């Protein structure tokens, strides 16, 4: 089969690889029908996540048709068209039982701080991902969810990560009616977080980024205020204080993570020299821009070591800081409902359709923010195009 093949920082290609096989009685094999490149794939692409091995196939946002199931699989059958949550989750450990499907303890041998994620380095379990014609899906009784009849597969593929992650970012903010929410980062997840903040009753939603085309999109899609931190302000924290009656936002969401721009020290130490686990500029701003007693919600991805953030301010301001990998399975029923009722329209985020064979161009396009790219979707060779 054809599969994405990581060759080193900023180098990927498509290669022939053996088709995956069933390895466990609860496995399924799916023929991938839709797959996306995610903003968090860029942390791997840039070589920032330890234990990212040459030869691995990335991809944690995908849908597919079940072509084979293990002997203990009862919830899906051959021929089902399923969306596959990005977490590999057993459904039985103490964390899954609490709905924390992003923190499963039975799927990732290499690290205990993170559950397993498809195609996301060996630090996240060493499971090959869905940027390929076929993928192995462990725990097929738990994760894969049959796409409801009538749902556009383009909407379904974004329910595997982008929509639930944006929604959980807002949920973790504990937004109360009338709250002012500031979202750092106008990528797909940030845009969705801004959109979902309204569902929790936010009174005002502001998004901050440096790409005008993304801000323009966010303003229209998420009905929010949008500001460019390179053009509209000198100091984002001071700017937010000024526009929030000098108190700060009730909730700040970091939807950027390790690739953040905007602070030379963070960029050099976090992204260039890898002296910290990515550039923590957005998180730094979030802590300083939120109101005393406010909430910082983190869905931006960082590496496993340390970051420079103003913890003294976090303590002095009495902040609540929440973060997690998204519990996709827990959120799916509500979010499927929102998509079916037209409350959320995920597929509008997709700006580019790229053949799997051109995946290197896709990564470059997305990474360098070329051609007004917001969300690239990979088209599989077997999809009939």
């Amino acid at each position: 089969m054809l599969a994405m093949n990581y060759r080193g920082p900023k180098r990927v290609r498509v290669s022939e690889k053996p088709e995956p096989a069933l390895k466990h009685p609860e496995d399924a094999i799916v023929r991938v029908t839709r797959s996306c490149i995610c903003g968090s794939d860029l942390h791997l692409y840039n070589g920032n996540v330890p234990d990212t091995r040459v030869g691995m196939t990335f991809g944690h946002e995908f849908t597919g048709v079940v072509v084979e199931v293990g002997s203990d699989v009862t919830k899906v059958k051959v021929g089902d068209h399923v969306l596959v949550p990005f977490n590999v989750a057993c459904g039985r450990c103490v964390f899954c039982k609490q709905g924390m499907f992003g923190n499963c303890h039975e799927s990732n041998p290499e690290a205990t701080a993170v559950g397993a994620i498809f195609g996301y380095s060996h630090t996240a379990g060493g499971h090959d991902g869905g940027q390929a014609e076929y993928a192995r899906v462990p725990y097929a009784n738990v994760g894969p969810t049959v796409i409801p009849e009538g749902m556009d597969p383009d909407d379904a593929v974004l329910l595997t990560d982008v929509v639930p992650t944006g929604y959980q970012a807002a949920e973790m903010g504990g937004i109360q009616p009338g709250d002012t929410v500031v979202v750092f980062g106008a990528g797909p997840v940030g845009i969705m977080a801004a959109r979902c903040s309204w569902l929790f009753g936010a009174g005002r939603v502001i998004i901050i980024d440096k790409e005008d085309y993304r801000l323009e999109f966010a303003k229209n899609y998420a009905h929010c205020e949008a500001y460019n931190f390179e053009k509209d302000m000198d100091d984002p924290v001071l700017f937010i204080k000024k526009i929030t009656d000098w108190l700060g936002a009730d909730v700040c969401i970091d939807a950027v993570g390790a690739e953040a721009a905007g602070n030379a020290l963070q960029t050099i130490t976090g992204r260039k020299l890898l002296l910290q686990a990515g550039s923590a500029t957005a998180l730094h701003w979030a802590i300083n821009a939120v109101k005393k007693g406010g909430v910082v919600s983190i869905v931006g991805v960082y590496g496993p070591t340390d970051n420079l953030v103003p913890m003294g301010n976090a303590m002095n301001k009495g902040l609540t800081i929440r973060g997690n990998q998204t519990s996709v399975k827990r959120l799916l029923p509500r979010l499927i409902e929102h998509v079916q009722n037209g409350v959320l329209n995920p597929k509008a985020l997709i700006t580019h359709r790229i053949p799997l064979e051109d995946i290197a161009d896709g990564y470059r396009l997305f990474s360098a923010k070329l051609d007004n790219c917001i969300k690239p979707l990979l088209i599989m060779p077997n999809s009939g195009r």
Partner: protein
Amino acid sequence: MQPTAQDHSHIPGWGIDADPENDPTYPMRDRCGEFTKKYDWERPPQQPIDIETLHSIERPNQPAVIGNSVPPSGLSGVIRRFAFRYSENLYAHWLPLLLADRVGVVEGIIDDLAHGHVPNIFAEKGYRAHWKHDPKGLALRLATTAAIAGGLVFLLTRGKKSDRIKSGS
């Protein structure tokens, strides 16, 4: 500057998930002992371990399911095995893994060449797309890289040349 939206009726779904009990200071969903607090849940069947899989020393065993992508091999594998002697709490775990990743890149190129495949770095870096959409930016980036590399080579070779002159060779 004022908020742009006081009346939210134009926003589909405004407030439909508002929940006064969604209090962020109590993030855990279970604090009452409904579920076990120990490592004693009914575990799924164990996947046969048919490849070398390194596991964190912060757990006593392999999880029931493991990824089977790219087992450790070569020099990078030696470094990874060393890293997994240490807990996730220590740089002694993470820094060798980053080193192993870089060694793995070189091993990947050697492996390609050994199999008669000359990697097309230009294509693998997606420069075609970059050239199509931002030729100036790409040219600037490549020129900057070339200038830095050229400068480094010049500095290193100049040092060696002056050493040779001093030693009379």
